[in-house]
């Protein structure tokens, strides 16, 4: 997912990391996806156009395309995507794979519980013999963006300004805890709130990845106070040590009951997301799911995440159940396992007969996707 921008009049898009970071007046930051599915089709098309012209640098009609999709993607959206691919881009062959299935396969498993915790969602998706069990999918909004929001509140409470680098012309070193000394760049264009917020969030996300840690047992204030502190310096030059907050913030992922601002007790912690999902599947396949819990997604790279999850599951799972968590050590594999799996699949000699060809689309229509890409 790449965020991009548009000017409200005349709709111009600025796409990709480099273009994204240039401050421009009146440019909003948007994402074409909502809830893991394509919502803004114009923006999505702009991204695809950009990819072909700037990265692939070749005609769309020359190369088959394999795309991954959210396991809960709607039939209407799948068909609309298929139509766009064949009618607008004239792509010669197309295939749509569910991310959870690709991830499971890439981990050497045809059956397992895929726990995907990214920016917007934490989801448990049961996969059995290469097929997603739709009735067992459990989603929670407590993921990376939720943690970013919690960090934002922390900084507000501590009166720390998360000044993003684009505003800073120069800064001076200051003593720890002292107010930062930086000069603002002059002639900055009037950027939109959405863009500025995104730039601040990037600062917070770096803090999130470097400083936070998940407690290996349920959060305890006294234990947290004993934890070693971690030093972190903001782009503005402000630096300080962080202690108990390191553990308190990510605790919300596993135990949302004490989090301010969450309505009632409706949110599920990560452990419960997994056990609820497995509980919604046939009792005979549950051992197979507990025996292969595949952890994926950038948010799971938080220090201590997998250890805590292991602990939670061993407590919550039925007593005699063999539990095994699979979590790639490589951060690239953890974040992009579905892409890696898809790239291998698409390059297999045998897979070439599995695509929906342009001819099949012409004969069978967009409904071909339901039949050929289950």
């Amino acid at each position: 997912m790449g965020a991009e921008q548009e000017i409200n009049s005349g709709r111009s898009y600025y796409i990709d990391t480099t273009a994204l970071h240039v401050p421009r007046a009146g440019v909003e930051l948007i994402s074409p996806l909502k809830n893991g599915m394509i919502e803004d089709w114009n923006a999505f098309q702009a991204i695809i156009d950009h990819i072909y012209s700037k990265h692939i640098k070749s005609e769309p009609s020359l190369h088959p395309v394999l795309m991954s999709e959210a396991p809960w993607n709607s039939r209407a959206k799948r068909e609309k995507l298929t139509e766009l691919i064949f009618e607008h881009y004239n792509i010669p062959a197309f295939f749509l794979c569910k991310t959870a299935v690709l991830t499971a396969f890439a981990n050497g498993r045809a059956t397992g519980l895929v726990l995907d915790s990214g920016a917007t969602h934490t989801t448990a998706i049961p996969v059995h013999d290469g097929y997603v069990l739709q009735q067992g999918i459990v989603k929670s909004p407590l993921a990376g963006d939720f943690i970013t929001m919690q960090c934002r509140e922390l900084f507000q409470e501590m009166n720390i300004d998360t000044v993003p680098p684009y505003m800073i012309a120069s800064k001076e070193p200051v003593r720890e805890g002292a107010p930062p000394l930086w000069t603002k760049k002059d002639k900055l264009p009037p950027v939109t709130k959405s863009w500025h917020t995104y730039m601040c969030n990037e600062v917070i996300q770096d803090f999130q990845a470097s400083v936070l840690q998940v407690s290996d047992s349920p959060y305890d204030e006294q234990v947290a106070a004993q934890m070693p502190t971690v030093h972190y310096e903001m782009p503005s030059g402000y630096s300080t040590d962080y202690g108990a907050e390191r553990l308190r913030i990510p605790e919300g992922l596993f135990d949302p009951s004490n989090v301010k601002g969450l309505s009632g007790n409706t949110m599920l912690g990560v452990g419960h997301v997994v056990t609820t999902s497995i509980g919604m599947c046939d009792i005979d396949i549950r051992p197979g799911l507990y025996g292969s819990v595949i952890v994926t997604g950038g948010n799971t790279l938080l220090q201590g995440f997998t250890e805590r999850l292991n602990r939670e599951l061993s407590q919550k799972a039925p007593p005699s159940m063999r539990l095994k968590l699979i979590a790639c050590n490589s951060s690239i594999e953890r974040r992009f396992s579905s892409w890696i799996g898809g790239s291998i699949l698409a390059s297999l000699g045998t897979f070439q007969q599995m695509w929906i060809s342009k001819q099949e689309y012409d004969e069978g229509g967009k409904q071909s996707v339901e039949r050929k890409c289950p």
Partner: protein
Amino acid sequence: MASGVTVDDNVLTIFNDMKVRKANVNEEEKSKRKKAVLFCLSDDKKHIIMEEGSEILQGDEGDPYLKFVKKLPPNDCRYALYDATYETKETKKEDLVFIFWAPENAPLKSKMIYASSKDAIKKKFTGIKHEWQVNGLEDIKDRKTLAEKLGGASVVTLEGKPLND
């Protein structure tokens, strides 16, 4: 979701031979029947074939399960058919188990191909009752897991050896 990899006819023949059991009572013939066999991908990665030299026969000496585990490559994936002999308190039984072996050390490409082709080979093995997805040496060495799959808590011996050793 499948990879398009096809299953060699030979594989199906082997399966059918292993499935048919009581028909040959002759000891000599029985000892020639396969106890365990491994299947792998052909060199061009387009077919599933029997792995040369991977068979263990019923008549072979020594603990067949240990020998079978030794045949599994530590760094690559395989499919296997294992003819397990086990006893419960009431009866002695034999059952075929389909095993999907994908160790953590195997290359990602291998895991991906074997996992996405598993459906193709499993579909050919009609009537098989037990399937086991194993991903590490400690898991497959544990006979209790296999025993539980075969008959649950009531299994007392596997390949003539009591489980609580």
